[in-house]
């Protein structure tokens, strides 16, 4: 589904952060990407999503869906989302004045339009939204609340998972979804993510801490350091990092 081929990336007109990343993600797989601060984890997430502050300076990212392969660099952020790529933000953005219902209905219908599928009217969308809110464990009072405004850290992260549930993407990149969460919130978020995993979608879970991987079991684990993947393996690698620390990998 996703082929990251020797990709280098930098902040626009600034420092190079990723220095030749290779990553292959297939449908049904969940890849964890771990690393110390500054290793480039969020940069990787943002270039997949198409954040305007970052650019790919070398290599390509190919995205294959419905037997069509496309170079991600040629796709606008909204196009990538319409083609099934979703980024759960590390710091979800507050959108005052725009309720979750309005925001998500606009997204959902934009994706429907792109895929040539009929849009949902507000009442039908409301039903869908409430169904997904139940799945993710979010109360109905959030329907009309403005997106993320004054939510706690845990509520914001859970709201990202709600959006994931509503949009049903093929490739979900979860950027440090666990950072700043207490164990209870973490379990709820993990539960939501696990319910959404399937054979037809794939996930890239970016994390600093190993803890979340106890609840969301990855198929592959990669360790990122100084913009490069220095080691790849399975869950055992995550346990090693947890017990020995990132410095151990310098050797």
């Amino acid at each position, binding site marked *: 589904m996703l082929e990251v081929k020797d990709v280098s990336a930098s902040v626009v007109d600034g420092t190079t952060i990723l220095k030749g990343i290779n990553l292959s993600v297939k449908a049904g797989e969940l890849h964890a990407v771990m690393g110390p601060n500054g290793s480039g984890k969020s940069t990787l997430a943002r270039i997949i999503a198409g954040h*305007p502050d970052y650019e790919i300076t070398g290599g390509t990212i190919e995205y294959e869906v419905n037997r069509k392969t496309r170079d991600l660099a040629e796709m*606008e952020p*909204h196009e990538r989302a319409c083609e099934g790529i979703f980024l759960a933000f590390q710091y979800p953005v507050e959108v005052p*004045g725009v309720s979750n219902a309005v925001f998500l209905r606009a997204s959902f219908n*934009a994706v429907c339009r792109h895929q040539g599928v009929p849009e949902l009217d507000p009442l039908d969308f409301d039903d869908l939204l409430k169904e997904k809110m139940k799945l993710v464990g979010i109360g109905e009072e959030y329907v009309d609340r403005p997106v993320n405004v004054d939510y706690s850290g845990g509520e914001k992260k859970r709201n990202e998972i709600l959006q994931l549930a509503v949009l049903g993407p093929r490739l979900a990149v979860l950027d440090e979804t666990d950072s700043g969460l207490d164990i209870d919130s973490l379990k709820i978020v993990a539960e939501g993510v696990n319910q959404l995993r399937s054979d037809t979608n794939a996930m890239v879970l970016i994390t600093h801490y190993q803890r979340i991987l106890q609840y969301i079991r990855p198929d592959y684990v990669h360790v990122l350091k100084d913009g490069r993947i220095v080691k790849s393996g399975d869950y055992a690698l995550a346990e090693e990092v947890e017990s020995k620390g990132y410095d151990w990998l310098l050797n």
Partner: protein
Amino acid sequence: MSETAIQHFSSLFETALQKGRENGEPDWRTHQRETAFSRFRDIGFPTVRQEHWKYTNVAPITSTEFVLPQPAPLPDVSSLIGEHREDEIEFIFVDGALSREHSTAKAAAGLELTLFKDAMANGEGELLKSRLESSAFGKSDAFPSLNQAFGSEGVWVKIADNAVIEKRVHILFLTTGTVPNALLAPRVIVDAGRSSQAFLVQSHIGGPGASSFTSAVTDIRVAENAKLTYCKIQSEAPDAFHYGLIRSSQMADSHVMHFDFSRGGRLARNELYAGLDGQGAEVHLNGLYAVKDKQHIDNHTTVDHRVPRCYSRQRYKGILDDSGRAVFNGAVVVQPGAVNTDGVQLNQNLLLSRDAKVNTKPQLEIQNDDVKCTHGATIGQIDEDQLFYAMSRGVNKDEAIAVLSRGFVEDVLFLLGNKPLQESLHGLLDSYFAN
């Protein structure tokens, strides 16, 4: 004012006087009009050299030749104003004349809507005369004087003491554009009795392509302990000119919310003057304006704290796109003796294009020490993080800007506290965002 303009308005005034005589209006009314027209001739239209008209050039109005509206066979009005709403009592004027066909026949207990000519006929002439007396007002007397001089018909809304009017009362002035460059001078008088409650809407709607000049004046008196929401909607045609003055005076413990929604017209100026004349009175001035293309909308508001212990809040938000221009001048005046005043004024603007421009000036004139007054003004653009967030969820840039812009104005719309009306206003904003 140029000789040509003076001549033109003068001959137009003669026609208006003639019409008045034909309609058998009383001498005092003719006299009021003549005095007003004299005043208008003497002072002329304001120029940009005057402080309160610095950013608003009315030359496009002075250089147009206007005509009086003609009675014409009623065009398809329903398509312009929609079907009758069950939750409203409607009083609809089409091109300056009341349309009984489209207005709700029965008002409600405790509510009277009287045409001026009917008030004159049923013995309220003297009362009406004094209510209409002071046309000289505002930041320039020219427009109110013009309204006084040319006004042919108007409506007097009376809400009885203790009356609670459940339905919204909607006075709608529709300009169809059947006659190009029509000059309209609607007048509304409102008397809200003690402890009464009502929700009034005054809207100015223009049919597509209508060219017109409306100079409207509204006088509101709110008695003790009354509660009133007054919502003015300006949705004139893109080529129209609009001047609207609303002045209100509140007695003790009354609570008024003014809501000013301005979206139409080529050049529009709204003046709102709220006087607090009784202790414990509270007033909210909320407003929303949206300009695009080459529109120019100017809002001047004043809250005048004349007695102690009154509370005022002003909150206006504006969205500007293309080469749109907006002006906001929000004043809080605190007279000596008006101790214990609590007044806040805030104007926030969202610019969606490089060429849009807003001039915002808060103004505080405070004449005693025992007050709590703050003011603020902001001018900003769409937040980049919010924009990327929306786009990362599949929404293209234009649509994302529309969603975020609507979000920007949502909290002000919410203050209306009336869902159906908020929905109507959302609808009026649809045309703004349809690119």
